[in-house]
Every structure is written in C-alpha cells, then in structure tokens.
C-alpha cells in the first residue's frame, strides 16, 4: 500500500496503456507497474520522471498528518462573461471539473505544518480546468497571502497550471496583477514566500506569482515556461532545444533556485523555512 491509495480521480488523469496494471512513463516511455509508480509518489522508478499529483496528494505528501486546514473551500467559478465556445458553455466545463475532481477551484488553500512549522499554502490541481487561473483561483491565492501576511506565517504556493483561464477573459488576466499584489505585500512585511513549480507551470501563472518567490523551487523536468512551444516555433521558425523550458533549463538561466526531487521536497522546504529569522533585528539607534 503506497503513501496514498489509488483513486478513480487519478486514473482519469494518467495516460493508461494496455491494461490497468501497467502505466507508460512519459519520461522514458518504459512500462512500469502502476503500483510501483504510485508507491514512488508518482515518480517513475526507472527514470525519475515526475508525474502529476492532485492537490490532495500533494497536501498529504507535504504537511504533517492531520495538520492541513483548508480555507475558503467554497469559492467556485462564476461565469462573468456568459462564455460559450465551440464546445459549449463555460459553466458546463466547470461542472464537469467539479464532479471529476471534487474540487471547487483549481487551487486548494489553507494552513498546515511542515515538520511542525506552521505555514500558509496554496496547492494547485491541474485536473481542474488545466489548473487555469480563474477569478476564484486568484481570490483564494490572494486571501491566503493576506492571511499569511496578517499572521506573519511563511507562504508556499505549489503551482501547476496551463495559464490564464480564457473563459473568464480579461478577468482572468487581472488575477495575475491581483495575486502579485498579495505577494508584494508579503514582501513588504518581510514574510517568506516560497514558490514551488511543478509540471506544468506556464503562461499567466508563470508570469505572475510563480517566479517571484524568495526561493523558487522546481520539481525535476517540469515545464515552467511562459509562451507555448508551438507558438514560439511558429514565431521564430527554429527548432527548440530538447530541454527547452524545463526546470533544468531555467536553473541554468538563473530563474530557479534549486531543483528538488519529490521525495526530498518536504525536508527541503523545512530546511529553508528554518532560515526565516522571525525574531527580527533591533531597529533603534
């Protein structure tokens, strides 16, 4: 029995091959026992390719058992633009996502403890409309930031997102400014903000709160670019390097502080948090 049990939900999001016993690794293309994969925290036992996690799985993996306390769980998308596209109304997609994931939005926020250290966290879930940044997502990320600011608790956001949510049009874009306003306030008050980038963190999320952490941590091999690969190829008419836009690419280019294996993520977060010197210096004369 792994660190969390297989769920219907997860099965939906993994690309299954042939039967229910094997899973095909998207990294090395090898077939590995599903159970081995799950037991290894959704990391390929052969090549260490990091598969996606649901928010619940990430929370289980990160916080001391029973310490995660969700906030603002009831926030869910409205349909401010009465948006209907070629595949139907936005509201239907939202309902499908809600049913599929059991979540109300693409991020779960709350407080929890990491080896005893109390923090505020946002954990995105890619299954919910591709982890897109909707008004509800932005609201939850901002409220959690405000809570962290008020209580001087470190803030950690685990990103997993394809970018802004088109169905909310410009309001989705505005969530980039909204969430960053929260991060700015945290910084003003000298409250730590750690950003964890998981596969994928792109578009409007990468261009707002995901890359302005005090420390930007990424999982190995995660796609963490801004523009879409195809858009770039069309624009510059040029082949892109293999590791383009991966964590490793951006580590070398100076935007990622460290790449951390999922197994070591909790301990690394704890170590970084331990350097936050809450006591403060004397500011007198």
């Amino acid at each position, binding site marked *: 029995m792994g660190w969390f049990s297989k769920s219907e939900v997860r099965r939906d999001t993994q690309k299954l091959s042939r039967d229910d016993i094997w899973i095909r690794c998207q990294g090395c293309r090898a077939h590995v026992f599903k159970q081995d994969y799950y037991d290894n925290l959704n990391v390929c036992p052969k090549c260490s390719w990091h598969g996606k996690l649901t928010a619940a799985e990430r929370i289980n993996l990160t916080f001391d058992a029973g310490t995660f306390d969700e906030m*603002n769980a*009831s*926030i*869910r*998308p*409205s349909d*401010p*633009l009465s*948006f*209907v*596209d*070629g595949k139907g109304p936005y509201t239907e997609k939202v309902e499908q996502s809600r049913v599929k994931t059991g979540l109300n939005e693409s991020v779960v926020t709350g407080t929890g403890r990491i080896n005893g250290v109390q923090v505020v966290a946002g954990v995105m879930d890619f299954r919910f409309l591709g982890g897109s940044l*909707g*008004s*509800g997502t*932005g*609201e939850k990320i901002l409220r959690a930031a405000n809570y962290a600011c008020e209580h001087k608790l470190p803030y950690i956001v685990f990103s997993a997102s394809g970018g*802004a949510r*088109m*169905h*909310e*049009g*410009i*309001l*989705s*874009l*505005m969530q*980039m*400014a*909204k969430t*960053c*306003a929260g*991060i*700015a*306030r945290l*910084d*003003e008050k000298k409250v730590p903000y750690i950003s964890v980038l998981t596969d994928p963190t792109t*578009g*409007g999320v*990468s*261009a*707002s709160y*995901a*890359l*302005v952490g005090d420390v930007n941590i990424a999982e190995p091999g995660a796609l963490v*670019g*801004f*523009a879409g690969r195809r*858009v*770039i190829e069309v*624009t*510059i008419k*040029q082949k*892109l390097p293999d590791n*383009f836009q991966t964590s490793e*690419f*951006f580590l070398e*280019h*100076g*935007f990622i502080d460290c790449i951390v294996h999922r197994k070591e993520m909790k301990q690394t977060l704890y170590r970084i948090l331990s350097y936050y010197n809450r006591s403060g210096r004397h500011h007198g004369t």
Partner: protein
Amino acid sequence: MERELDFEKPILELEKTLEKLRHHESQGRGGHRSLIETLEKQLDAVRKEVYRNITPWQTVQIARHPHRPVLRDYIEDIFTDFVELHGDRCFGDDHGLIGGFAMLGDEKVMLIGHNKGKNVEENIKRNFGMSRPEGYRKALRLMRLAEKYNLPVVTFIDTAGAFPGLDAEERGQHEAIGRNLTEMARLQVPIVAVVTGEGGSGGALGIGVGDVVLMLQYAIYSVISPEGCAGILWRDGSFSAQAAEALKLTSASLLDLGVIDEIIPEPPGGAHRFPQQTADTMRSVVLKHLKELGALTTVKLCARRFEKFSAMGKFIE
C-alpha cells in the same frame, strides 16, 4: 492605405470622392463647393453610422490598424521635452518598449510604453512592439527612478503580447512580467495606464497595473488574441470573430467589468483618421487623473491600488 477595412468601405469611398473634388477645387477647376459640403455632411453621417454599429471583431481590426497612432506619435502630439532613457542595466535596450522623462501639460511624468513601428523596417527594429524581458526590466527600472524622483508614471499599452521567442524565454519573460506586476502593485507614485491599441495579455499587463486604467474607445484588451482563443476553444482560427465577441475585449465591455476606469472617446472614424483630435482628448483625460491622483497621500494611493486589484474578478462563494 496598406490595409482597407471591409466595414470602412462606405467611408473610404466617400473620402476618395471628396479628395478628388477638393483636388479639382484647389487647382482652380472649381464649381463643386456645394457638392463638397453635401458630401462632407454625408461622410460625417456615414462615419457615425459605421462606427456606431461596430462589432468586437471590427474593433480588433481598428485597434491593429497600421495607421493607428503609436507611442511616438503621442510623444510628438501631446508630450513635450521627452528625454528618452535607454536600457535595463542588465542585458540590453529593448526598442519595442521605450521610456523616459516627459511633460504632459504642466505635469512632469515618467512615460513608458510599447512602441510599434510605423513601417516594416521600423517594425523589425521595434519587434512590432513585442517586448523582450529587457523591455519589462527597463520599464521597472524607470518606474523605480520615477519613485525616487517622485514623478507619476504614465504607461501606454499597445502590443500583441510579450515576444514569444527562444531568447525571450531564456532571459525569463515570465519572471520579468511577474516581477513588474509585483513591484507596480506597491510603487509609491501614481500610475496611469492607457490602452491605446492592442492590449495583448501578459505583455500588456506587464506595464498595466495602474491606479487608473484608461482605454481608447476602439482599443482592445484581452487575455488572449481572438485568433489564439478560436484556435484553442473552437479548434479553428476562422472563429476569431466569435472569440472576439465572447472575450469581451472592447472598451465598453471592460468598463462594465470594472477592469478599466474610463473610456477615452475617439471621433467616429477612429484614431487612425483623427490622430490629433484623439490625442487631445487623451491629454485632457490623463491630465485630469494625474491631478486627482497627485492629491492623494502615498499611503492612501498604495492602499487604493491594492484594493482596486484585490477586487478584480467574479466568483461565487
């Protein structure tokens, strides 16, 4: 005119006729004065008619019109004593996003904006107004300089988007935009942002976090281009008009949604036809807001900006 807009045909035809008549008249082969006057009135009416019923997709076309004024035009038309300041002090100088000290009437400001070219050659130099990270970093540097010198910041937004290129990614297009959003949120001087043409996604917002966000009537501002949206959500770029409609990217829609604070009206016929008139209106609207914001204390100003962007978005709780 390089590109004629279909829906402008009635206007264009009348304009051509009138031009010919005026030419005749100016060469002494006159006698058309009363016809000219009639046609002028008719032209006015046609312009109003066409521009009254304009669709979002047509607005997109106006916003991208090759004759639509660009930042350089506004700098000449309404600003004085512009001192351009180059460079991000780190990697390069972006020609697609420029800035510097400038006067608007009696207000000293730091002017920053996307800068499309007016012809192919200039557009290549200016990368069609699509900035790389060094453009956003230059913008931030100038905003901090404005903070030091206690100058309000005025930004002009007109870009299809941040440049999607290999080099732009390498140098952290995402980080550069995210950093600007973060720092603009707490900048201790007033910020007035004006969407003048295309407000393309993160590349627009990257200099768009304003205490006041203004928009020219026929500008657009959107999370994604209609073409891109149609390609993804309709799986067919030919649905761009539908996407433009759905995205609510016109100034009127954005005012409704609370994303912009005021529309700067353009004459019927658009800014590409009446650049000076448009610029004059813009000048007075921007000045009005600069004066209002200038009366606020720094603390109040920053608190207001935080509240403003905190309130963006609609959700159910």
